[in-house]
């Protein structure tokens, strides 16, 4: 992969500091996934800053530099609107989701925040259905520290999965 690839930013951080941040980010993500995997969707926006950007898009779009998102939220208010819609009004078959995360990589830390990426596998289980690998991809994140705690200022969920199985109900 070339160095200027939009999905592969060169690392520019001291390795001891990276290790320290990695543990903190892994803790953050474990909580984030526990919230989502418990279907506690209305708790999901709390992991973001007020003006955060959240986008789910295919790797195809990301590599072509195309801006569209399966989910595209500018700010936590839009995320809350989605969370409320999903949890209270939308019609879909019941399902369990399970996020499995790995390969957290801290890339930079500066005034703009901490940039990191983490690979994910998203499993889905439907009533009387098999457990399937619904999405495979990578979070491309920028964290800020507010009152000592990490918050997501940006999460770009870039999925390798090219043809989605029917739909994507819950945030990733």
């Amino acid at each position, binding site marked *: 992969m070339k160095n200027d690839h939009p999905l592969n930013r060169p690392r520019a951080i001291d390795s001891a500091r990276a290790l320290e941040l990695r543990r903190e980010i892994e803790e953050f993500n474990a909580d984030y996934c526990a919230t989502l995997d418990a279907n506690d969707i209305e708790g999901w926006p709390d992991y973001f800053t007020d003006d955060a950007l959240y986008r789910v898009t*295919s790797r195809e779009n990301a590599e072509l530099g195309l801006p569209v998102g399966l989910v595209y939220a500018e700010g936590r208010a839009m995320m809350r*609107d989605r969370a409320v819609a999903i949890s209270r009004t939308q019609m879909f078959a019941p399902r369990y989701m399970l996020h499995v995360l790995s390969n957290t990589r801290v890339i930079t830390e500066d005034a703009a925040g901490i940039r990191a990426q983490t690979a994910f596998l998203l499993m889905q289980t439907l009533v009387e259905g098999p457990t399937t690998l619904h999405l495979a991809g990578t979070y491309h994140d920028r964290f800020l520290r507010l009152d000592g705690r990490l918050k997501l200022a940006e999460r770009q969920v870039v999925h390798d999965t090219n043809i989605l199985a029917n739909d994507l109900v819950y945030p990733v």
Partner: protein
Amino acid sequence: MYQSQTVIGRTLREKDAPLADCKWPDDALHYIPDWVYTSQAVYDLEIERIFRGKSWNFVALEAEIPEAGDYKRSYVGPVPVVVSRADDGSINVFENRCAHRGAEFCRHAQGNTREFVCPYHQWSYDLKGNLQGVPFRRGVNRAGGMPKDFKTSEHGLRKLHVATRHGVIFASYSAEVEPLEEYLTPEILEDFDVAFPGKKLKILGYYRNELPCNWKMYHENLKDPYHATLLHSFLVVFGLLVAGNKSAMFADKVHGRHGYMASAKTEEKYAVVSEENRKEMRSFNDGMRLEDERFLEFVKEFDSPWSVTMATIWPNFVIQREMNTLGVRHIIPNGPDSMIMQWTMFGYEDDTPEMERHRLRQGNLMGPAGFLGLEDNEAMKFVQEGLRRCTTGVNVLKLDADKVGASDTLISEAAIRAMYVYYRQVMGF
């Protein structure tokens, strides 16, 4: 779930009927038999008579292949094709199958090339699909090679007929199909030209998903305004399509195969629904409000009485103009129980950055994770599973009974009936 991953998913034998057993119910307008959606034999005949018959199939937007050498993988029915722009500016569509041993040679979703080379034996084709080179055509040391009468001109890729209108590319297997504009019919053409006035498009991105349902269900869903006002609480609560609002369901007057659902949003941000209508709508939630109302803004950009139109163009094309989120959807049939949907979201080259972001925000309505899109996908999956697995065998379409074609009430199935009148004629049912 991918159709192929279904655990309990066998189609009952009587639903996978051979053609000889496919008899349409006597009250043909008001009943659709399940086998239309579930029979492999019916599906096979559809591919032959509809997708490879006298039809224009959407394949790409010109904005995707603006330069000479640009190409894109696409489909006509379930058949993989390549859409390519040649040096003379012409657009060419040919099957993605090497004329030699049949390899599907073009593997990249899109790109730019000087020629297409099959990786297996390196037969090469120009941007119009003509065979230009066969390695070792004369053999080695005068041994082997092609016979003297081998003509490259007789071994090109299978080419399709191509037509374009205002940046939208269609292909056809048929030499007899009417010209594209005539095919679309006057009213549909008029709505087509609203989203495609000839302005340069800007591609905003793609969605792709498998829907475990028959391809016709997608047409029907967009010819079924009844569901729109019941299933989609978002449409209802936010006044995007409400029983009682100014709205219409059109069906083309020539064949009844194309159509569009249309609605005019009122100035009110949230719908005002009468007590009487509210009682009929379980999904209506009076207290629901958005925290970020930018999502619902409607920038009037078209000369059209409708803020929303969803057009179904037979057999594989949907034009989405949902306020300011614009897109085309390409239906790829994938057996009786599956279809692939390829969505291309777009704006215009002269959009301001703020307008582009507005389109992206409003895009949350549509697509496989959209507030409307995901509910449709779920509902159609439920229908396909019910049809395949249960013993009763007909769908009941009695709303607005006996009417065929357009209707000005949303509580109507007249446009679905129009589609099936045409379908039965093409299919011989």
